[in-house]
């Protein structure tokens, strides 16, 4: 059995959960096994809907204590569910939740862990599972063989698309004991509106070339027509032109959207470390010598204050014609 932890932060499934279930189903097919999804805590809507993405069983531990992420309790419950269903592979998402829990689950199950997996390379005849992941901040790829009987991996966001490859199923409630929590949530502050950066398929990012925070309107407009999330470079976040959570790069967050549009960002190596796993990179900069052009797929050398509104206009026209 391939067991997928379908995470539901604050009671809601995100794209990461659907990606993980689809990934789990495809791996299960390769192994000649079936795929079960497990849900922790209370969720909005019917968890059985996860069947659409490929889970043949959906298990729910509906204890409301699990609405709080306490990594110890999560790991204990996930490991117990894995034992009950006889899981050979446990899959989590490589998110803030997954990163907190995956290592613990691996220790509990005496299992090898590879985090941030982008694909399965092979299933070996000796039972080893070979997976690929990006290392050195996107500058290289590693293949690792997980050789333990039980294997744990966390799936990088946007590594695959969720696919409707199954049917909804009736969720089964699993009675699993939940230990006393040792972590208490005081407050959650999230930004409403745009898709969070790690989940975004299109990201529009801007840097010091914007000259002043009051100029961000053209970036927001471009993001709006694309349904994109906005990001920024480190100097911009450090001078409080934009909020800290928008900072992508080595010390900020690493993202891998399908399309990354960099506006007025020179492309320092620390910035590239956070974005060079993007599928397609567009760079708009007036300086033809900007190092970012070397990492770009498409480049526009020009004044961003003219180019960006023109691009917004072109996309609007394109969307209207679709």
């Amino acid at each position, binding site marked *: 059995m391939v067991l997928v932890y379908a995470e539901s932060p604050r009671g809601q499934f995100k794209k990461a959960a659907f990606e993980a279930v689809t990934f789990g189903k495809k791996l299960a097919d390769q192994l000649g096994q079936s795929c079960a999804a497990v849900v922790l805590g209370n969720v909005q809507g019917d968890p059985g809907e996860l069947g659409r993405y490929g889970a043949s069983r959906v298990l729910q531990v509906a204890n409301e204590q699990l609405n709080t992420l306490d990594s110890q309790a999560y790991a204990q419950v996930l490991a117990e569910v894995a034992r009950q269903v006889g899981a050979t592979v446990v899959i989590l998402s490589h998110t803030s939740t997954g990163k907190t829990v995956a290592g613990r689950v691996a220790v509990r199950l005496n299992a090898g862990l590879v985090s941030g997996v982008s694909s399965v390379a092979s299933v070996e005849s000796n039972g080893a599972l070979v997976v690929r992941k990006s290392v050195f901040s996107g500058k290289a790829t590693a293949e690792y063989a997980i050789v333990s009987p039980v294997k744990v991996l966390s799936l990088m966001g946007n590594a695959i698309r969720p696919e409707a490859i199954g049917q909804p199923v009736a969720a089964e409630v699993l009675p699993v004991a939940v230990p006393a929590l040792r972590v208490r*949530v005081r407050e959650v502050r*999230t930004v409403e509106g745009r898709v969070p950066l790690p989940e975004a398929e299109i990201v529009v990012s801007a840097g010091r070339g914007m000259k002043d925070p009051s100029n961000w309107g053209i970036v927001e407009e471009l993001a709006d027509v694309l349904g994109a999330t906005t990001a920024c470079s480190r100097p911009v976040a450090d001078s409080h032109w934009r909020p*800290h959570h928008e900072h992508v790069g080595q010390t900020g967050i690493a993202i891998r959207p399908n399309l990354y549009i960099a506006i007025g960002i020179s492309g320092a190596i620390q910035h590239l470390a956070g974005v060079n796993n993007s599928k397609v990179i567009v760079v708009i900069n007036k300086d033809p010598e900007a190092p970012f052009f070397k990492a770009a797929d498409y480049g526009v050398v020009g004044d961003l204050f003219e180019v960006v509104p023109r691009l917004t206009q072109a996309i609007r026209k394109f969307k209207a014609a679709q």
Partner: protein
Amino acid sequence: MKFLVCISQTPDTTARVAFTPDGKAYDGTGVTFIMNPYDEWYALVRACELREALGGTVVALNVGPAANETTIRKALAIGADEAVRIDAEPTSSAFTARQIAEYARAENFDIIFLGKETIDYNGAEVGAMVAEYLELPYIAFASKLDLEGTTAVVERDIEGGVEAVEVALPFVVSAAKGMAEQRIPNMRGIMMARTKPLKVVPAVPADEPVQVVKFTLPPPKAGVKLVNPEDMDELVRLLHEEAKVL
């Protein structure tokens, strides 16, 4: 208070990435190695700040060969009181976590700090493993940490925001940007670091359930395709028809 800060040594951010001919290992020939930035800038500095405010001891721990002692001395120069080196190549997250846990088990640290991940293998795995071995709470990607008596209030980065949690000591935490500001060691710190204790501890045997098959470098980019800044319709066409991302 007793704080443990786990420090890794990584290639410098700007170092070229190359592998041995068999593709099995990183080729560090001629590369400058540094303390992993998250460990140094955030984890270590915050531990030192708390020690300065509350008293106690900061122990810096590295799993690595003797060559890592330059990096370990830097941690002492920044402000750690003493250091421990577990004498082994840190071959995997599982191995490293097991070594840290074995050492920390008997020492009763109030907080065990790590950086959120290393900048080479980008695993973000060790902290959770250490916490599980020691049966301690674990807060990952913390951008703020304050103590209120024996309770810590920790803010952790989550997708699109921040979650503030309370956790009683002892616990394990991984540090992200925001937890502290980078400190440059001063001359006095560098001098003092020379005489601070650095204990070398043998490693314990550990399973290696994950093995490297190979490392590969990505094929070189085809090169940037420049688009006329007057013709953004052309860029949209390329993104739609060629790159297929619109």
